[in-house]
């Protein structure tokens, strides 16, 4: 059977020590058994490593940060689409999702398909609303406080014991053992990610994650649990292993059934020594370790593209447990002309 030729635009080519999911998403798509993909890389910075990786993207375009305004970003996507028609767009950053979700219909009108959570699904899982989320869907979450200013720091000890986790709305998390450390983390995080800064009770246990894909109708198309085996100082997995844990799968399926989650997601959970699970975060997109799920038998990006195009997708039930991934860093030697082209022309 010949493969369907399609063009897919992907963001998140920043394969740094805090990697975006773009490169593994592209790698997964290139291994698709049903699609013959042409990849358009969309980058925010001229030094995103994915730009320089041979054989990864067929074409690369610089796009403006969503902070410059949604219209500016979508106008640029339209401009790119006029030259290189895009069938499916897979955004991979939390911070850009809002703009793409807001403009989902505008993109579809010109033939660009996406498969993103709804605005309600996206907003109700915001880190600063996790307590309400836990209550609504019957899932354990750590106690939290949203700090709008430093003057609220004294409230922490009334509600929880130290240490606590100090988190930004989108990224960053620091452990703090006292009010002084909270203050330092608050300043760092608020300067970078704005307010509120979230204080979360520290739940002792093992951090485990589930990558999943919901079809928007309540069905779980894919779910693979993983435990980080090697964690960087930024808290990112540098090595991980797939688990066979029915409880984690059940939590994921129940949540997708209840919320009718549409698109890729990552559940971050803490498993306590007593075997209880606390939900600490939901990332509303495919995580950077997606290729582990592909290696374990579930090609999530391929399934997401099928869903975006309205194809029928059968839920994937099996995967190999005990599959591992180990990341590595690699120096690519780049000619100045390549850097010059992307920097000056905004495309390559």
């Amino acid at each position: 059977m010949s493969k369907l030729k399609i063009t897919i635009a992907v963001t998140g080519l920043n394969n740094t020590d805090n990697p975006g999911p773009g490169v593994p998403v592209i790698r997964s798509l290139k291994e698709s058994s049903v699609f013959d993909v042409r990849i358009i890389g969309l980058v925010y910075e001229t030094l995103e490593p994915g730009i320089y990786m041979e054989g990864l993207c067929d074409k690369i375009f610089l796009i403006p940060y969503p902070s410059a305004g949604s219209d500016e970003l979508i106008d640029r996507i339209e401009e790119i689409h006029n030259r290189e028609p895009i069938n499916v767009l897979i955004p991979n950053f939390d911070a850009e999702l809002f703009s793409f979700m807001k403009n989902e219909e505008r993109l579809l009108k010109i033939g660009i398909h996406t498969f993103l959570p709804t605005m309600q699904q996206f907003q109700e899982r915001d880190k600063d609303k996790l307590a309400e989320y836990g209550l609504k869907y019957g899932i354990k979450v750590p106690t939290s406080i949203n700090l709008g200013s430093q003057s609220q720091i004294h409230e922490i000890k009334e509600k929880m014991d130290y240490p606590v986790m100090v988190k930004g709305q989108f990224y960053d998390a620091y452990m703090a053992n006292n009010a002084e450390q909270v203050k330092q983390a608050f300043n760092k995080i608020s300067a970078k990610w704005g307010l509120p800064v979230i204080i979360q009770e520290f739940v002792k246990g093992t951090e485990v994650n589930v990558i999943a894909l919901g079809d928007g109708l309540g069905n779980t198309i894919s779910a693979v649990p993983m435990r980080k085996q090697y964690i960087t100082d930024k808290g990112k997995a540098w090595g991980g292993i797939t688990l066979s844990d029915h409880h984690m799968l059940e939590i994921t399926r129940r949540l997708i059934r209840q919320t009718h989650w549409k698109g890729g997601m990552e559940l971050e959970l803490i498993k306590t020594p007593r075997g209880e699970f606390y939900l600490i975060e939901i990332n509303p997109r495919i995580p950077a370790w997606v290729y582990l799920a592909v290696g374990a038998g579930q090609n999530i990006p391929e399934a997401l593209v099928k869903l975006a195009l309205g194809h029928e997708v059968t839920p994937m039930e099996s995967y190999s447990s005990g599959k591992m991934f180990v990341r590595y860093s690699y120096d690519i030697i780049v000619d100045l002309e390549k850097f010059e082209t992307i920097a000056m022309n905004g495309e390559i």
Partner: protein
Amino acid sequence: MKITDEIRISDNGFVFNSKTGDSFNINPTGLELTKLIALDSDFDDIKEIFLEKYDLDDLTFENDFYEFCALLKHNQITVQEDPLDFK
């Protein structure tokens, strides 16, 4: 006492718990013991095998056996509904 379904034991002594992601290395004697437990062998049968094969007395075997079993349980390699069940 039962070795859980999620446990994989390799012949070289590598034990992997696919539920927790933990892995362990056990020495050849530990492997022999673990395999006998996995086969649901009776405590008395295991003792007989070990006393015959190794130069050790009853008391030492029992002491080491219970210690090893506690270690297996602590690391979620075995489940033991009845704390006195060492079958």
